C-alpha cells in the first residue's frame, strides 16, 4: 500500500497503440514482451497521464482522471483505478519512475 501511495509512474516508451472504428477500446503491443493487450478507453486515458514529463503519483493520476472524466473519486473508482495501474505495471505499459 505504501508503494502505491508513494510511487510515481512513467509510461513505457516504444509501445504501439491502435484503435478501430467499431469500439473505443485500444489494443497495445509491447515490443519488449511481445504481448498484446486490450485496454479500455478509460485505462488508456489513465496511461496517457503517465506520459507527463513529471511522473505523477497514483493519487495524482486518480485525481486527474476523476476530474477529466467528471467522476466522483468514490472508493469503487479509486479501487478500479488502482487495479488498472497494477495491470498496466504487470503488462509493462507503465513503470515506477526512476
Amino acid at each position, binding site marked *: 500500500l505504501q508503494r502505491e501511495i508513494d510511487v510515481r509512474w512513467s509510461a513505457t516508451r516504444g509501445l*504501439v497503440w*491502435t484503435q*478501430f*472504428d*467499431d*469500439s473505443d*477500446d*485500444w*489494443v497495445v*503491443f509491447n*515490443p519488449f514482451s*511481445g*504481448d*498484446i493487450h*486490450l485496454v479500455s478507453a478509460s485505462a488508456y486515458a489513465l496511461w496517457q497521464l503517465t506520459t507527463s514529463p513529471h511522473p505523477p503519483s497514483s493519487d495524482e493520476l486518480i485525481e486527474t482522471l476523476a476530474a477529466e472524466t467528471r467522476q466522483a473519486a468514490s472508493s469503487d473508482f479509486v479501487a478500479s483505478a488502482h487495479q488498472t495501474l497494477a495491470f498496466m505495471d504487470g503488462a509493462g505499459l507503465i513503470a515506477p519512475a526512476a
Partner: protein
Amino acid sequence: VTPSSLASLATSGVQVTIGPFLVHVRSELPPVRQYLETLYADFPVGTDTAAHFDIRVAGSRGMRRWIRPQANLIVNGEQPFLPLPAELGGALFEWTLNFCVSRDAHRFVAMHAAVVEREGRALIISGESGAGKSTLCAALVLAGWRLLSDEFALVDPDTGMLSPLPRPVSLKNASIDIIRRRGPQMVFGPEGIDIENARFVHMKPPLSSVRRASEPATPAVVIFPKWSAGSPTSLARTSRAQVLLRLADQSFNYNYLGVRGFETIADLARRVEGYELEYSDLDDALPRLAGLCDSRARPA
C-alpha cells in the same frame, strides 16, 4: 510429381514447389513416394537441391528395417522429432512441412488458420484444433472455393495480401466420413492413426487451386467457427480488436517480427469483417459464408 520425376527421390532427392516455398525432399520409404505420387501429382517438381526447406524422411537401419520399421525426420540437417512408424511416412512429410513453415517462414506473418477464396475475396477460418476449421475448409473447397491453405494464413507484410499455400487438406475423425460423402470424386491419401490416436487422412488439393498457387488473395472476412451438435447456424459480428487479439493468438511469429508483425495483423483486422460462427449443419452454414463474401462484393 510423376513416378518418373520421383526417380531421384531416394538418392539426391527432388525439389517440389509448394506455394511460395521450394521444398527439397529425400526419402527411400515407399509410403513417402506413394504419398507424393498420389497427393502432390499436380505440383511442379525438379531435381535442383536449392530449397527453403530440406526434408529427409529416412528409414531406420539394422533390424528396424524389418521389425516395426520407423521413419526418421531430418529437417535442414536437424532431427527435431523422435522416429515414428514408417507407415506414417507420407503424413510425416506433411506434418514436417507444417513445422518448417510455422518455425521459419518469417517473410510472412504466419497464422494457424484455413484460407479459401471466391471472386477475389478470401475467407480466413481461424480456430483451435477441433473447432471444425478443416471440415469447413474442405467443404468450401468441394463447393468450388479456391483453396489457399487448410493450415496457414500467410500475410505478406508489404502488401497485406494472403499468399496461397495449397497442400493436401488434413481431415480427422468424423470429418473424414463427412468429406468423403460430400466429395466422392476427390482423391484421398492413406488413412492412419496419429500419435494422439486420432484417425486422419489427407485430401488432394484441387488442380485449379494448385495452378493458382502464385496468385495472392485479398482478405475480406475472418470467421471463428465452433461446431456444436444440433445447434442452428449463427453468425455474430466480432469487434476488430477481438479479431486482432485472436489472430495474434494464432500467429506463430508476430512477436518474432515485432512491430511489423503486430501492425500487419492490425491492418488485416482493420480491413476485414470478423464473425463468430456456430454451426452443426454444413449445408446450412456454407451458403451463409458465401453470402458474407458476396455481400462484400456489392458496391456500397
